[in-house]
């Protein structure tokens, strides 16, 4: 039986003492009401997406019609072509993909190795150092923004993807944390057995831990992919040439260059940025949900 105590030790308020009659009818009504509320909320959450897609298919004239019309007519696929004309979106997509893939590779390899050091190896100072890893998550970006900018410009790295990718190769505190949580759950005997057989730590990591930790590593890869795909401040500060822009930067620029009547094109571009994200999520949603849930509860 669970005991409830406050942190300061005082007992929790006792639960009331009336008896209830469990009525199945009422339970059914409750569940219907629940569905009604949830459906309404879902509609609110989905509507902006719908509005985005609908707008992306409207002509300039129809965009500026009130009350809003939910069926584009005529359906104007040309907005997508116009969006490509207003900005080199394919170029941006390619650039963004290059950054995403590079940083995913970097972050997964480095974070896995580091997480191994923080979980499967026993050494003095390990846990103290790990507290520092967690603490570093609290550091606001503003504090490092300027010195990093100065370092990267001294290195002549502005207008390249290096400031956006190189740091990924040094691990990421959040991912290290996620992977460590996962590694700790792998029974110790596995590695001990391998050690007895003379395997070194890298071999153990590669041959035993990595195959078992694949789900966690996929979660990390997905998170990083999304992070890089969504990142705005980094490209904003470091990338100057239009031909090296990322999608996020390109969309923001489009929004400031184009006006109200071109919202069809802007929404077409937004749809093209959002679609791959939704696609990835559709394929791999359990990794997301589990990753997020793990970050909160076990923290």
């Amino acid at each position, binding site marked *: 039986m*669970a*005991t*409830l105590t*406050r942190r300061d030790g005082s007992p929790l*308020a006792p639960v*009331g003492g009336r008896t*209830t009659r469990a009525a199945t009818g009422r339970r059914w009504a409750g*569940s219907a009401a*629940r569905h009604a509320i*949830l459906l309404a909320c*879902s509609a609110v*959450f*989905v*509507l*902006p997406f719908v*509005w*985005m897609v609908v707008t992306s298919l409207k002509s300039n004239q129809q965009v500026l019609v*009130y*009350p*809003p019309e939910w069926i584009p007519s005529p359906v104007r696929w040309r907005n997508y072509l116009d969006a490509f004309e207003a900005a080199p979106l394919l170029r941006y997509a390619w650039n963004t993909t290059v950054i995403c893939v590079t940083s995913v590779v970097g972050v997964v390899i480095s974070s896995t190795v*580091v997480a191994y*050091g923080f979980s499967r*190896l*026993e*050494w*003095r*100072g*390990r846990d103290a*150092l790990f507290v520092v*890893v967690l603490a*570093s998550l609290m550091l*606001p970006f*503003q*504090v*490092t*923004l*300027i*010195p990093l900018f100065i370092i990267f410009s001294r290195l002549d790295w502005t207008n390249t993807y290096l400031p956006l990718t190189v740091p990924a190769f*040094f691990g990421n505190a959040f991912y290290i944390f996620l992977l460590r949580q996962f590694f700790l759950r792998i029974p110790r005997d596995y590695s*001990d057995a391998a*050690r007895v057989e003379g395997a070194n730590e890298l071999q153990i990591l590669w041959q035993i831990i990595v195959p078992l930790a694949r789900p966690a590593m996929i979660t990390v890869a997905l998170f990083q992919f999304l992070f890089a*795909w*969504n990142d705005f*401040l980094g490209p904003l500060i470091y990338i100057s040439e239009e031909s090296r822009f990322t999608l*996020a*930067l390109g969309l923001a620029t489009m*929004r400031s260059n184009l006006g109200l009547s071109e*919202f069809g094109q802007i*929404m077409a571009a*937004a749809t093209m*940025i959002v679609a791959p*994200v*939704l696609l990835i*999520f559709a394929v791999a949603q359990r990794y*997301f*949900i589990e990753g*997020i*849930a793990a970050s*909160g*509860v076990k923290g």
Partner: protein
Amino acid sequence: MAIAQPTSTFALPGADAADRRAALRRRELRRIGTGLLFVSPWLVGALVFQVYPVFASLYYSFHSTTMLKSGTFVGFENYRLLMSDDLFWTSLGNTLYYLGASVLLGTVAALALAMLLNQRLRGMAVYRVVFYVPTIVPLVAVSVIWVWFLHPQYGVLNYVLDLVGLPSPGWFADPAWAMPGLVIVSLWGLGNAMVIYLAGLQDIPVELYEAAALDGASGWERMKSITVPLLTPVILFNVIIGLIHGFQYFVPPYVITGGGPADATLVYSLYLYDTAFQYFKMGYASAMAWVLFVIILIVTGVLLRTSGRWVFYQGGTR
């Protein structure tokens, strides 16, 4: 909980105590070495990309550094000027406004949705996806979508408000409504917190509810006495994450309003960004960064300190 590893040095019979101690120390050193080797990518990265920058920005904050000049030592001048800078206070006020509203409403809404979902409910997975998906959409796209959704004249929300006979605000065109608009945008991204609450709720032992039901507690009483208290650690976690994110809030105001109208949405990060990258005052911006850092530390510190009064920890079940 260190568990000795079966290695040959440990079991050598006949070696004297001093030798054994030396061997132990060597082994210990080797272990530390291996450990450090494995964590070295992070260690190096943290030194270069975090530790050095933290001290460098502290250093710059005492100098009149600009993007083009290293400037001179000015002591506390940047901090002094900051205190008399109206925009600093405006932006801090805007940030606190945003923070208060988005964290409070976000917590209540995410918690409510999580509780609604935390039942053996048909379609629960689908709902969860619907609420979660907006959080993975690129923030620039989110911003652009909402500029349009909340457009004063052609936006969907004002249309709906019009239908039900409510006045339709100017949202991002109106200084009084621009910040509420941004808060609404932030609420669209509550899925992250909701999923964490949901996981927390599912960790609450069913026996507790059963026991309460036996005692005849109503649904409301069960929520008040079991669910919320047991969820307080998760709430604390989410609130802290929300605060840290809120203090770093940048992309939506940058893309949607650019800080306007009339500075109504000029949040701290935006002003800091302008200071550094539009007015090139790196030293001054570094001082701003450090003031923010200290504020964050104080706020989280106070929150953690006082959390003992309202955060409950579950004993015995784990």
